[in-house]
């Protein structure tokens, strides 16, 4: 070959490798045939206008109409997934059902699509990414995450003689503090409660992780309900009820208002401490509904015997997936990649007061604007941040667990035999499901 040709070829090689290197930073522009309409279904959503406007940006840039359906009922989702016209992208409030659906072949694997359309998986926080993995493959991507922390009412702390800037550090301290913050009348009626472990809903996953365990083992092959940690966690929770009379506690809690209202137990100053998610700090909740509340946030207390569990929290949250029945998966994947891009992700998370799942997006200063929200940002990126493990029987296990917890807390039952019975029932189910 002549020298000129060699030089030309070398230049071409250099140029193309240069281009490829540049392409790594930006999503590779894969040529995709866009359909007329892309449909996005979201199972939650209190502000359809804001979400639709967000998606319209993609629509305009790519000459396609994006129809956002939010909120969508759960049974519609299943019906659609089973049919021939599922939505192109499905955004769920949590990944609980994904493993069941993957088992039924309803979800498209994302590893390849993510690579083709340039979704940077390394940019996603490991704990958040792990939720969408099943049997080692990726099926769902986190679109905004949640984590939980301790909220406490500083006014009530002050009244009870506690230092408002010093929340309880250990679970044992929680019991003491709760006792000081609980007010009971002569006839047993409660007028103020220190802490209710399953208010507004159960956080057993946080407590059991704080004790150092979880109800599945790491590779999702064993059910671990009948463990000392589970028993300890439930027994710890139980004390908050039995101390003041289960009936009275239930009465008091049920008289508090709706979750998203100023009469919410914590917002109205009726319950002094609670475990809840990062969105609570936002304008849709405490920020907007109870601006007069003087409160603090911090990590959930750990058991005194396990100081290494300090700052443990379980990260969960919204996930997006592509149903397997979608015909034009590339178009859907392109939309998904756009959703995952740091700017768009940051935009949506700021609007919703959710945690960004992308490290790049997390750099957006808006996330640190609210100092309380920032606490959750730190929690989610701390080394002790963990995640849920899902298996095909997750739904069944969670139902059993919920019933057990209700029996333990609301009926004073002994957790050990209940946990054992559930484990004996669920392990064979898991074995069978995995054997498929």
């Amino acid at each position, binding site marked *: 070959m002549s020298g000129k040709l060699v030089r030309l070829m070398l230049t071409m090689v250099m140029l193309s490798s240069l281009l490829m290197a540049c392409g790594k930073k930006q999503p590779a522009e894969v040529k995709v045939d866009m359909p007329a309409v892309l449909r996005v279904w979201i199972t939650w959503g209190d502000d359809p206008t804001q979400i639709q406007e967000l998606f319209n940006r993609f629509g305009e840039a790519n000459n396609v109409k994006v129809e956002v359906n939010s909120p969508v009922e*759960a*049974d519609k989702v*299943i019906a659609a*997934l*089973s049919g021939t016209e599922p939505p192109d992208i499905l955004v769920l*409030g*949590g990944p*609980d059902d994904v493993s*069941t*659906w993957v088992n*039924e*072949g*309803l979800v498209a694997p994302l590893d390849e699509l993510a690579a083709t359309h340039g979704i940077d998986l390394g940019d996603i926080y490991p704990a958040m990414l792990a939720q969408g993995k099943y049997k080692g493959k990726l099926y769902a991507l986190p679109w905004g995450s949640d984590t939980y922390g301790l909220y406490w009412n500083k006014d009530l702390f002050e009244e009870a003689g506690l230092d408002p800037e010093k929340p309880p550090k250990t679970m044992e301290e929680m019991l003491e503090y709760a006792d000081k913050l609980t007010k009971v009348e002569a006839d047993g009626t409660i007028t103020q409660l220190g802490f209710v472990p399953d208010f*507004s*809903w*159960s956080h057993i996953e946080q407590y059991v992780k704080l004790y150092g365990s979880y109800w599945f083992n790491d590779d999702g092959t064993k059910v671990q309900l009948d463990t000392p940690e589970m028993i300890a966690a439930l027994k710890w929770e139980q004390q908050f009820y039995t101390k003041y009379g289960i009936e009275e506690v*239930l*009465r*008091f*809690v*049920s*008289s508090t*208002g*709706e*979750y*998203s209202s100023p*009469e919410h137990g914590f917002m109205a100053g009726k319950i002094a401490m609670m475990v809840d998610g990062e969105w609570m700090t936002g304008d849709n909740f405490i920020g907007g509904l109870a601006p007069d509340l003087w409160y603090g946030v911090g990590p959930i207390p750990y058991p005194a015997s396990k100081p290494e569990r300090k700052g443990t929290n379980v990260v969960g949250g919204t996930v997006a997936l592509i149903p*397997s029945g979608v015909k034009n998966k590339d178009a859907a994947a392109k939309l998904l990649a756009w959703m995952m891009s740091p700017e768009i992700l940051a935009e949506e998370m700021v609007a919703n007061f959710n945690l960004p799942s992308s490290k790049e997006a997390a750099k957006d200063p808006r996330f640190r604007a609210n100092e309380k929200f920032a606490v959750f940002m730190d929690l989610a990126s701390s080394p002790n941040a963990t995640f849920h493990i899902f298996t095909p029987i997750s*739904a*069944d296990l*969670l*139902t059993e667990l*919920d*019933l057990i917890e*209700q*029996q333990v807390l*609301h*009926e004073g039952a002994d957790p050990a035999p209940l946990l054992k019975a559930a484990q004996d029932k669920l392990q064979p189910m898991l074995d069978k499901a995995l054997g498929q």
Partner: protein
Amino acid sequence: MTLTETLVKPKRRRWSPATRRNFIKGMLFISPWILGFLFFTLYPMASSLYISFTEHHIRTASEWIGLENYLNLLHDRRFWTSLYNTVYMVVIAVPLELLCAFVFAVLLNLKLRGQSVYRLIYYLPSIVPLVASSMLWMWILNTNNGILNVLLGYFGIKGPSWLTDPTWAKPALIIMGLWGIGNTIVIYLSGIQDVPTSLLEAAELDGASWIQRLWYVTIPMVSSITLFNLIMGVIGMFQYFTQAYIFAAAQSGRANNVLGSPLDSTLFYSVYLYDRFSNLKMGYAAAMAWILFAIILVCTLLLLRFSERWTYYEGGER
């Protein structure tokens, strides 16, 4: 011709031309129903019966497992709980609603001032959409702030936690149900008004008191209404779903919407079936559906059988 006569009568060997003509005419007139029955009822029924014998998968082939779904049902604690809850409602709520509807209709028939206003008031709640009324009652039943317990408080009674106490959740739903019986009240009202005055006058002349007239004349005269509403009520109550579903959904945003809370006390049959369906256990759900059908069939036939003695039909026979 009564049903028994139809069944017992020996079949004719050959049809006369007139009979054949009538048969064709009859079939033509009911053809829309027949078509609908075949496509929208019979075919889906066969299909779901088949599904109930399989472990139904959506994308992959379903596997035939015979009676396994049904056997698993028998060992499922939640299945029995849901059945108990539903039977509870059927046995308590249906007769109670009928009784109240009748009593209220009697009240509305009294010669008092303002009855037309009262009639509107009693009827109105029954046309409020179910979603709205269910949520309305969730507020009313709130433990400390709901007006029901506030009112009870004025009488010195400490009202229970209607929505969160397993013992009181079903009674709460029953109270909620009573609010919407306006429809039945009006039906009974017109039935009562249709009782021939001649009969009532005759009874009065014979020295019957108001209560005796009610018991011996009015109630029997409206017995066909009672039977019809009893049967429809039982059939409907076995499928009780909406209110319980809204109940669960409205309880302070739980991350997992556990139907049937508190402690499965509101886990009704249809609710559990829906739960299985949502968890993609289609075969199981289909099996539950067929068992429900069987139960309803048996109950209806029993009701019809035992009602013959106390029901009176105008014109003699059905």
